[in-house]
C-alpha cells in the first residue's frame, strides 16, 4: 500500500485511478497489460467483491422491503451514495423544484453492479447534434472533409474500433445484422456472444407492428418501426464466429472462476444478478495482474494535488503530482487518516458527479467544471393486455431481462430540430419494473379493496382476501406491461454540480450541490415525451391493450421516488424520472474556452490529469451511455499508455501509434 501521510517511504505509481467502477477498472486493466503499475483508490468498501460477499448482497436484496437499485449494497456513511427516495440525503438540492432524480453507487464495482446491462451504440447523429439539428453540443471529433454534418471515416473507424473493444471487455451478446443501422456499426460485425432471445411479449408486439407509424406533430414524421433485439452485456452462448473464428470465452463469477452461467432469467439485473451472468466491473478486476494493479478500498480521494506535499521545494509546473485521500477503518466512524499517493498520471473515474466534485475541490481553474449535468429523462406508459379470460392476456411479467428488444426508428431523424428523439423498450417486468412493485397491488386490495390506476378508489375501505383476492390478482398482474421511453436531454450550462464548505459528509468531503431542471429545453424534452407516449398508445391500441395511469396530479411525499418533471397528456399524468445516466459534468471539447477535457478525456488545464466516464460526454443521444463510456475509457487508456511512453522516454515510443490519432 501507499505511504502514510507525508511519510517518506512512499511508492510511486505510473497511474493512480480514482474509483473502482467500470471505467477505472477498464483503464487499469489495459494499462497493466502494457506493464504499467497502477493504484486504484475506491471510496467504498470491497464487500461484494468476493463470492461470499456477493451472495450476501443477493440475500440482502431478497430481504429488503424496498427493492431499490442500491438495496443489495450496504449503506456507507463514510462514502455516501445518493438515494432516489431521499433526494437531499446526500445531494444538496431544493426539494420544492425539479429534482435530479438518479442515484449511483459508491462501492468496489460501482454503479455498474446494478445496471440494466443494455448496450446500444450511439448513432452518428448523436455526436453532432449541434451541427445537424442545432441542439446541444457536438463531440469534438473530426468531421468529414466535405460534409461537416458527418463524422470523418477515421473517426467512424475509431468509434467502431473502441466500441468493439468495449463489447469484448463487457462480453456483449447481440445480433449486429438485426440491429442494422442502429448506431455506429460496420457491416458483417459479430458480437462476442450470440443474441439473447427476444421475449414472448416482444413477439406479440412485433406481430401487430405497422409498417409505418406517423410520428410527431400531426404525424408529420413517418417512421418505419422495427423490433430489434437489444444488445446486452450478459452471458448467452459464446459466438464461435467471433473475430473471424477466434471465438470468445466469458469470464466466470467472482470467487468461483469456473462458475459462469448463461442468463437464467432471474429478472433482477437491476439491482443484482444472482448468478453473475450480467457483466460487472468485478469481472474486469478479476483479470488484473496482482503485481501491477493495487486496489485499495475504503480510500476516499479528497483532491488532486499539483504540488508535492512531501517535498515542498519541488517546482509547480501545472502537472498533477498525485492525490490526497482519506482512509477509514469503520464506515460508521468519522475517524480517518490522510494519505498521499504519487503518480505520473491521475485518472478520475468516480462517476460524473463525483468527478466534477473532485475537480472543483482540487481547484482546477476551468469555468466549465460541474456544468451541463445531464441524464436521460425517462417516461413509462403503462397498459394491460386484453382480458381474454385465459392465457391470452397473460404475457408473463418478470420473465427474462428487463428489455430484450428496442422499438427502433425513433432515435435519429430530422425531427430532432424540434423535439427529443426517444429509444423505446418494451419492459418485461410489469408496471414499475421493480421487484417490490406487485406488493402495491396486494396491499391496495387487502387494505383498501381496489387496484391503483385501474379501479376507482372506494369511498369506504373494502378488504379483499382469500379466493377473491387470488382471482383478482391473477386477472390483473399477468397482463401488466409498460413501454420505457428514454429521451434525449441536451447539455445545458445551468444544470450544475458545485461544492460548498457548508455541505460536507462524515469525513469532511464535499457533498454535491445540485441545480437541475429541463429549463429552456423543457419543450424539447416534454414535447418529445408526448410524441413518444403517442407512439406507445398506438401500439396499445393495436394490441387491444388499454392504457392506465394516474388520473390525478401526484404530490411528492417523503420517501417517494424523485421526479424531474411531470406533464399531462390524454387524461393521464406522467412522471419524467431519471435513468441513472448521469453525464456531462466535465464535457470534452476543443479547448479550455469551451470545455474541461479533450477528446481523450485529458484535462485542458493539466496535461497529466484525466477525467473519464459519462461526465466527458457533450451529448448522450438516446443510448444507454455505459458502452460508449467504456469505449472512450479504453481510448483514454491507449492515450495514457502513449503519454507514459513519452514520459519515460522509451526509445521505441515512435513505434506506438497514438490512440486514434
Amino acid at each position, binding site marked *: 500500500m501507499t505511504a502514510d501521510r507525508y511519510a517518506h517511504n512512499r511508492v510511486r505509481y505510473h497511474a493512480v485511478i480514482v474509483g473502482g467502477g467500470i471505467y477505472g477498472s477498464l483503464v487499469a486493466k489495459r494499462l497493466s497489460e502494457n506493464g504499467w503499475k497502477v493504484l486504484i483508490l475506491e471510496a467504498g468498501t470491497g464487500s461484494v467483491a468476493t463470492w461470499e460477499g456477493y451472495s450476501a448482497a443477493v*440475500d440482502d436484496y431478497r430481504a429488503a*422491503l424496498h427493492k431499490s437499485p442500491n438495496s443489495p449494497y450496504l449503506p456507507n456513511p463514510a462514502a455516501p451514495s445518493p438515494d432516489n427516495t431521499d433526494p437531499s440525503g446526500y445531494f444538496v438540492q431544493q426539494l420544492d423544484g425539479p429534482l435530479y432524480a438518479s442515484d449511483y453507487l459508491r462501492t468496489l464495482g460501482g454503479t455498474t453492479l446494478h445496471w440494466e446491462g443494455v448496450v446500444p451504440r450511439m448513432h452518428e447523429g448523436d455526436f453532432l447534434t449541434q451541427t445537424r439539428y442545432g441542439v446541444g453540443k457536438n463531440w469534438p471529433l473530426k468531421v468529414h472533409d466535405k460534409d461537416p454534418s458527418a463524422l470523418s471515416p477515421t473517426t467512424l473507424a475509431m468509434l467502431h474500433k473502441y466500441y468493439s473493444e468495449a463489447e469484448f471487455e463487457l462480453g456483449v451478446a447481440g445480433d449486429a445484422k438485426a440491429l442494422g443501422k442502429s448506431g455506429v456499426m460496420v457491416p458483417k460485425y459479430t458480437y462476442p456472444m450470440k443474441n439473447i432471445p427476444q421475449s414472448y411479449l416482444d*413477439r406479440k408486439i412485433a406481430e401487430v407492428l405497422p409498417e409505418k407509424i406517423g410520428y410527431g406533430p400531426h404525424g408529420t414524421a413517418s417512421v418505419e418501426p422495427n423490433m430489434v433485439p437489444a444488445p446486452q452485456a450478459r452471458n448467452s452462448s459464446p459466438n464461435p464466429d467471433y473475430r473471424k473464428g477466434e471465438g470468445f470465452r466469458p469470464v466466470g463469477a467472482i470467487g468461483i472462476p469456473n462458475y459462469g452461467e448463461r442468463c437464467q*432469467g*432471474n429478472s433482477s439485473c437491476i439491482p443484482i444478478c444472482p448468478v453473475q451472468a450480467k457483466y460487472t466491473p468485478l469481472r474486469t478486476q478479476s483479470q488484473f495482474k496482482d503485481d501491477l494493479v493495487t486496489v485499495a478500498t475504503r480510500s476516499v480521494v479528497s483532491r488532486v494535488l499539483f504540488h508535492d506535499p512531501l517535498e515542498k521545494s519541488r517546482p509547480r509546473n501545472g502537472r498533477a503530482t498525485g492525490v490526497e485521500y482519506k482512509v477509514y477503518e469503520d464506515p460508521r466512524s468519522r475517524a480517518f487518516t490522510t494519505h498521499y499517493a504519487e503518480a505520473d498520471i491521475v485518472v478520475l473515474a468516480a462517476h460524473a458527479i463525483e468527478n466534477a466534485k473532485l475537480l472543483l475541490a482540487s481547484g482546477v481553474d476551468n469555468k466549465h467544471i460541474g456544468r451541463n449535468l445531464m441524464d436521460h429523462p425517462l417516461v413509462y406508459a403503462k397498459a394491460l393486455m386484453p382480458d381474454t379470460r385465459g*392465457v391470452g392476456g397473460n404475457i*408473463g411479467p418478470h420473465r427474462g431481462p428487463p428489455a430484450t428488444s428496442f422499438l427502433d426508428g425513433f432515435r435519429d431523424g430530422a425531427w430532432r430540430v424540434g423535439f427529443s428523439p426517444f429509444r423505446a423498450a418494451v419492459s418485461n417486468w410489469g408496471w414499475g419494473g421493480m421487484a417490490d412493485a406487485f406488493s402495491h397491488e396486494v396491499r391496495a386490495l387487502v387494505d383498501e379493496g381496489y387496484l391503483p390506476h385501474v379501479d376507482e378508489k372506494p369511498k369506504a375501505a373494502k378488504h379483499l382476501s382469500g379466493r377473491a*383476492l387470488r382471482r383478482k390478482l391473477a386477472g390483473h398482474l399477468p397482463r401488466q406491461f409498460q413501454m420505457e421511453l428514454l429521451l434525449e436531454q441536451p447539455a445545458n450550462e445551468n444544470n450544475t454540480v458545485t461544492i460548498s464548505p457548508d455541505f460536507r459528509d462524515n469525513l469532511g468531503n464535499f457533498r454535491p450541490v445540485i441545480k437541475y431542471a429541463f429549463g429552456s429545453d423543457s419543450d424539447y424534452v416534454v414535447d418529445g415525451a408526448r410524441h413518444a407516449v403517442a407512439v406507445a398508445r398506438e401500439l396499445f391500441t393495436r394490441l387491444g391493450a388499454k392504457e392506465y395511469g394516474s388520473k390525478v396530479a401526484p404530490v411528492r411525499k417523503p420517501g417517494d421516488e424523485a421526479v424531474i418533471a411531470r406533464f399531462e397528456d390524454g387524461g393521464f399524468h406522467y412522471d419524467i424520472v431519471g435513468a441513472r445516466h448521469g453525464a456531462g459534468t466535465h464535457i470534452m471539447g476543443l479547448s479550455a474556452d469551451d470545455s474541461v477535457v479533450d477528446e481523450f478525456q485529458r484535462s485542458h488545464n493539466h496535461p497529466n490529469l484525466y477525467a473519464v466516464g459519462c461526465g466527458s460526454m457533450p451529448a448522450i443521444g438516446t443510448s444507454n451511455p455505459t458502452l460508449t463510456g467504456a469505449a472512450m475509457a479504453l481510448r483514454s487508456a491507449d492515450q495514457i499508455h502513449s503519454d507514459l511512453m513519452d514520459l519515460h522516454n522509451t526509445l521505441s515510443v515512435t513505434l506506438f501509434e497514438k490512440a486514434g490519432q
Partner: protein
Amino acid sequence: MTAPLKPDPTGEQFAADERYFVDMSVPLTGFSPEDLYATGMVEEYQRTLIARIGAQRAADLYRHYRKKKQEANAKSPVPDELPWPTATDDPILADAARAVVKMWYVGAWYGLSPAAEAKLREAEKTKPQGVAPNEAFMVSPEAYLNGLVWKVSGGHPPGGKPPGYGSWQSPPVPIPAPATGSYEELS
C-alpha cells in the same frame, strides 16, 4: 400429529402445532394446505404472527376463521372470501388477519394500523402476551422468494427461482384458478 385440532386452542396449543396456522390461512389466502406447506414458510410465518400479536390473540384469530369457515362450507355456493373479524369487535385481530394475508402474498410483515397498534400496546399493559414492535419488514429472504403473489403473477420472484435461459421467449404457463367448493379443514 394426527390428533384432531381443538376448536378452542390456548396460545400454547396454537404455538405448538402449525396446523392451526395453516388451517386459518386456507380461507385467508385462497390457497390449499398443500400449496401453503409447499412454500416452506409455514413455521416462520406462524412464529412471526405470534411474535407480533401474541400467541393467545393468534389463537383467537384461528377460532374466528374456524367458525367462519364452517359457516361458509355449509353454504351453496361457498363464498370466495370470509368475513374479517370486525373492526368494532376487535381492531387488533382485524388488522392482524390482513397482515397475515399480505405476509403470505408478499413475504413481508406490514404490521397493524396505528389505531390497532395503539390498542395492542394498551392491552399489553393489563394482560401482557409479550409482543415485538410492529415495524414493516421482510420476514426473510426465503419469504420474499416464496410469496404467493408469484403464483398468480405469470412470472417468478425477481432474483430467484429463475425459469432458465431463453424461457422468456415461450408463452407463460397458465395460472391455475382457485378452487371452488368447500374450504379444506385440517382436523
